[in-house]
Structures are given as C-alpha cells and as structure tokens.
C-alpha cells in the first residue's frame, strides 16, 4: 500500500514537472486570447525562449540571466505578433504560424552559428540551471506515512519554475478578474467597440496582453532548457505550445479549468513514460507508439466537442477597425 502511494506521488510529481511548460503557455494564451488575439504562436515563443535561456545561461553561467533572456526573446516575438495583428490588423493565424516557422528555423541557425553543435547548446551543468529546491522539514516528515512521501516527492524537490508555474494560475486569475486592467482586457476581447467608446485604447490593451503572453511563454521556454532540461535541443518544445492551446480551449478560457486541462495532458505524458515496456494484466504490453500518441488523440477527442462547447471570446481573431 505504502509502495503504491509512493508510486502515485512520483507519478503526480512527474505530472507536475511535465505540465509546467503547458501551464505557462496556456496562461500566456489566456491573456492573449481573452484580449481577442489568437495566439497559435505559443509554440514558437516557447521554443525561442528555450533557446535564448540556454544560450544565455551557457554564455554567462547564470540561470537568472538565462531566464531574463528567455523573457526578452518571448516578448520580442510577441511584439512582432502584436505589430502584425494589432497595428496592421493582419491575420492572427498567419502571423502566429509565421512566428512558429521563424522560431523553428532561427533557433537552429543561431545555435549552429554560436555553438557549432548541430543546433544544440552545450549541456548545462548544475550552477547554470535552476536546481531542485528541497523544502525544510523533508527529513522530519519522512517517517510520517502518506504525508511523508507526499511532502518529499510532490511538494518538495521541484525546481523554482515549477512553483512559479503553479503560482502563475492564481496570479492570472487575479489580474484578469480582480483588477480594472483585467476587466478592460477581457472587454477588449468581447466588445472592443465598447472599450473604445469608453475612451480607452483598444490597441494598447491588446499590445499589453500579447506582451504578457510573450513573457509567460519565455518563462516556459526557460523551464524547458535550463530547469527541467539541461540545454537546448532543436525542436525541444515538441508541440507543447499547441497542446497548451488545446488545454486553453478545453479549459474554456478560464484559469483553473485550464490548469486542470494542462495537468490532464501532463498525467497522460507521465503515465505514458511509466507504462512503456510494462506488462499489464489482461491488456499485456502496450506498444510505446500507442502511449506516445495518447495525448494527441485525447486532444482531438476533447476538441471535437465531446465535453460541451466552449464559447470563445466574441472578438477573438477579429482585428479592431473603427467603423465607417
């Protein structure tokens, strides 16, 4: 029993670690899309953030400078997106896809130019990364049944950015739903003309929302390359930006349901890696391909509307033009 509990705690801990980048990206998407700007470029900003973090950390030896570089990279791409979609009222999907393609190519080109390792950065060692934080009293609680493993495996021993990801959810909720800025941001995604006639700039609100999205994606990228992983590998975002977008839609553009959607995708990924090669009773050995494909199949099923229709923000994807 105790062993099963320990297993469970380990699965949950790995779920948390695998969900963290999804959470950053989904909260990023939440800001952008609630303001009416579709963000399919989460993937690209995540990848760019990952590269910038690893490159900066490798060059300076400081994970903090890596994080800072990742945020700057994410926001720079966000600025491009906002310039194209808000200032020039371009198509938001096209701009997002362009950002993804740009990030995919640019990271490899810069990587080869800077490090000559086939697009990778050199592996990062401990001081260049965000290490796991062991909370106090881990030793003290170790002998307490159930709570001990819970504390040691799940609560303690995560890196800083995992805690930050979890914290990002209530912060996002607070900003969007308890501040005047958040109210206006949501209004701009529903009825921008109402915001305009109230005397507030639609463009400036959307710029801020998209930039916040860039910031969060940047942190997510830093998590991939200098916290969870130890260095940048080409295409290391591996579709997480898209999964986050799916989680956002499945979570109906609300922070807490979106968090749970992210965790659901995380749990699939973590059980998948544990199940591969394991001989299960009745079913037998599950082919690893089936397990790997599970999150994507789930995405399709969820998005096909099996769980109730999600109503997107009304002005989503529509550039704001003063009428006549």
């Amino acid at each position, binding site marked *: 029993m105790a062993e099963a509990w320990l297993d469970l705690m380990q699965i949950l801990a790995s779920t948390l670690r695998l969900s963290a980048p999804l959470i950053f990206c989904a909260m990023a998407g939440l800001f952008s899309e609630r303001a009416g700007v579709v963000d399919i470029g989460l993937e690209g900003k995540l990848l760019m953030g990952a590269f910038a973090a690893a490159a900066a950390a490798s060059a300076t030896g400081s994970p903090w400078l890596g994080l800072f570089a990742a945020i700057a990279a994410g926001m720079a791409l966000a600025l491009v997106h906002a310039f194209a979609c808000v200032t020039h009222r371009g198509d938001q999907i096209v701009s997002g896809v362009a950002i993804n393609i740009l990030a995919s190519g640019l990271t490899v080109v810069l990587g080869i130019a800077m490090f000559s390792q086939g697009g990778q950065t050199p592996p990062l060692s401990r001081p260049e990364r965000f290490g796991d934080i062991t909370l106090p009293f881990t030793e003290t609680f170790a002998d307490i049944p159930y709570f001990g493993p819970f504390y040691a495996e799940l609560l303690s021993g995560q890196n800083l950015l995992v805690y930050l990801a979890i914290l990002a959810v209530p912060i996002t909720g607070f900003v969007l739903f308890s501040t005047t*800025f958040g*109210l206006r941001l949501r*209004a701009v995604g529903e009825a921008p003309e109402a915001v305009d006639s109230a005397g507030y700039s639609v463009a400036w609100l959307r710029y801020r929302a998209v930039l916040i999205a860039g910031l969060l994606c940047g942190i997510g990228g830093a998590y991939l390359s200098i916290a969870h992983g130890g260095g940048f590998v080409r295409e290391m975002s591996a579709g997480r930006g898209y999964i986050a977008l799916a989680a956002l839609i499945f979570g109906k553009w609300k922070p807490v349901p979106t968090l749970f959607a992210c965790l659901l995708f995380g749990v699939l990924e973590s059980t998948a890696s544990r199940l591969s090669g394991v001989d299960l009773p009745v079913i037998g050995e599950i082919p690893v391909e089936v397990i790997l494909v599970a999150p994507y199949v789930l995405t399709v099923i969820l998005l096909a509307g099996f769980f109730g229709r999600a109503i997107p923000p009304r002005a989503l994807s529509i550039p704001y033009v003063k009428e006549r």
Partner: protein
Amino acid sequence: MSAPPAISLRGISKRFGAVQANDAVDLDVAEGTIHGIIGENGAGKSTLVSILSGHYGADAGEIALFGESVKLASSADAIARGIGMVHQHFMLVPNFTVLENLQLGFAKTRLLKAGRKDLLARIAAISSAYGLEVDPFAVVERLPVGLQQRVEIVKALIGGGRILILDEPTGVLTPDETDRLFESLGVLKAKGVTILLITHKLREVMAVTDNVSVMRRGKMVAHRQTAQTNREELAELMVGRAVRPVRNVSPSANGEVVLQVERLSVRDETGAERLREVSFDLRAGEILGVAGVAGNGQSELLAMLAGLMPPAAGTVRIGAREIGAASPSDPAEMRALGLAHVPEDRRREGLVLPFAMRENAVLGYLDEARARRPWMIDRTRMTGRCQALMDTFDVRPANPALRAAGFSGGNQQKLVLAREHGASPRILLVGQPTRGVDVGAIEFIHRQLLALREAGCAIILVSVELDEILALSDRIMAMNGGRIVGIVDAAEADRQSVGLMMAGVAHPLPTGTAEPVYRDEAIL
C-alpha cells in the same frame, strides 16, 4: 439670450475618401432642450455626432460647449467634457454585468473591489435622480433591449453627462419601450440635461423635440422650431422634394382564398411553442398586415409559411397542397407553389452580402440564369436579369457587378423585393420591408407593394412599424404571445385600437366606449 448654447458647431467638415460626409455644418443647441437632427441614411448625421463624441476628428470647423471653445481629440476628451453618447448599436459587453460595463469606463482604482461601492452609489444616485432603474448585477445580454438602452443612458450620464446624444435610439425598441424612453428624456430635460436626438422618424421628432435641424447630403439645410413646423415640411426638407405618404385607399378586391391556415402551431428548436393554433384566410388582391411587438410569433409565422420551419400541428392549404406536421414543406416547394418571400433580415436571409448583386439577383431562382447545360450558369443572362431588376426598381448604383454589402439598406431591400417580384408570385410574404430604409425608398417600396396587390397578389405584411401596417393593409391581424388576438378591417382600425390588440386586449370596442373589454371578462 444671455446663456451661450450648450453645443455650438461652426463650419464642421469631414471627408471620407470621395465622400464629403459633413460639409461646413453649423448647429446651435440651447441648454436644457431636446434638439432633433433628422436626415436620410447617409445624410451625415452619424458622422456629425461621431465628431461631437470624439470618435472622429473633424477636418475643419470649431466646436464650443457652453460658450467654451474645445478640441475633442478622443472619446475620453468628449466624456471628460460631459458629453455622453448612446450609440445605435450598443457599446456594451454583452456577457458582462451592468456594473462591470460601467466599471469599464469609470473604475478609478486599480482593483475592481476598491471602487465598487463608490460606483454603485453613483449608479443608485443616477437611477433615483432620473427615474432610470437598473439592476447593477444583471448580465447585459439577458436584459430586454429597452433596459440595455437604459444602461447606455446611465453610462452616458455617469460620465457627468450634461449633454446626451442619442443616435437612432428607437430603431430597436418596441412602441411601448419607445414611449418609456421618451418619458425618461422628458425627465432628463426637466433636470437640465441637453439632449441631441438623431433620428429619421418624423413622428418622434414631432413628439419630443423642442427644435429640429435637417441634414441632407452632408449639409445642414434647415433649422426649425418643432412647434412651428410639421411632418410634411420636414419630410420635404429631408428628401429634397415633396413626399406623399403612400396609402391603400382603393376598396379590397375580395378575391378568392389563396391561402388557408387552420389551427397552426409551430415550435422552435428548443421545443417552445412560438405559434399557437393560428387560423386565418388570405385572399387574392389583399394585404394582410400582421401587427405585433417583435417576438410574438410573427417571425415564426413567416418562416413557417416560407417553408423554413415545419408545422407542429394544424394545416396550411395552398391550392390542392395541404401542409401539415406529417407533410412539411421546404422553400423550393413553396416557391413552386407561387409563394415568394422577402425576409425580415435582408442582410442575413435575403442577401449574401459578399456576393455581387447579379449573383444575389438569382438566389433561389437559378433556373432563370441557367444556360443550355443545367450545371452551368449563364453569366450574361444572370447579369441581364439583374440589370433589368435594378432598372425597374431604381436600385442605385445600377451596377450588377458591385458587392451587395456596398449598397445602402434601401437599395438592398429594393433588390430583394425586385427579385421576389420578378417571380410573379401569387402570394408574397414581406417582413419588415422598410427597416433601416430611407423615406424616399420607403415611398417606392410601398408603391410597389400596392401595385402588386392591384395585380391580384395576396400579401402578408409583417412589420413593427404600426404606421406602415395602417397605411397599407386591407385587414390587420394583431398577434400576441403566438396567438392571433384579432383580425380587423383596416378601415375600422387606428393606432390605439391596434396597439391595445398588440398588448393582448381582444376586440376593442368602437371609439366612444370608455373601457376596453378583456377577452376573459367578455365571456362572463
């Protein structure tokens, strides 16, 4: 003569591309009055008030408020100067509460919670001072349109509104809601608020304004004191020529029955009964006007008769064909039976806006445009047909290649009517034929409907404009809650009696009888 005018405009000009929307417009509005601005669609009324509300900057001209020269560079500027604007299309976030919509513009604190109490108190103060009750916690989209508009008025006043601008405020309101709006405007005026009312409805101008200014093609053409003018003069000033309201005066043809509706019921997708046991006959050569506040089953009646909704019970008989729950129809069959349909919402149901007019001209009548091969469209014939329709119905500009979206409401409606007219229908269903249509075009459309009637076509006319129903109908059928309250000869009907029937009061007694008799009481 001492107080400067609340609003003083001098030489306001604004150009959009080739269109001179406002051409050296002058206007003075005295403080504490209701001032009407009338004009046809495209006369420049909306542009003028958009300049006054800071939405656009004028190319030239001076604006002075209460004697002080001002620059209005943005909406925020105008709000700060006490100008509150109620737009034709509400500037509200539909899924926010009333309070959230007001916080949008007027929250002064970073946290919503901090300024909440203060704002609630201001809402309550406005509500009680002007008799504008609103529930701050109601979600806007669940409120009736009249109340949504009230929220807009409260919003305009909360900004410190000394000047209230209303752009076509009654277009979306029921007659009852309109009356209540005008009562509120009276209260506001008594409290010293200056009101600018933009409209194209002469009745409203005559009913509530103190002064009226008329615009035509971007110019201000006349200023009048309301008490010293009349509808005829204003109509003439608006259109630039004499307008004679069209009336149906010739006796009814009393033709054969072409459509028989018996105990017809219709349910919507949610299963709610929208039409309850409706029975009536329609004769060739008559116009049956269907009066009712929007949403009382008229739309469903039209949709059912056009073959768009199946009957839940009862029958509709056209010639030998009997349509019932077991034998529903479809639009193509109804057309084959000689029925044509001018839908209520021409922009969504009558036209495909991004299509060229020539394509719109053959929608539903593709046989007319087909070439020798049944799967091909003959573009020359299609264009020719559209050109012919445009010429006979005076659609301007008469260019079949232009997109439908670029035409004015009146010209769009004329094309839809022309298309359906071209099929030489025996029965014509017409929904809201003059909604958002200019006075000149209204006159034209009314004449065409009467001409069709003379030619023996049976017409069902659904309209929320009671004046239109009264002017054109042979018989008037009033609906309430999906039922027919009564059918009366138009000759015996007036605004009051039909209005009572629309409210659900059956069989109004001849004039002179004091109390209306309610159906249930009448049985006793």
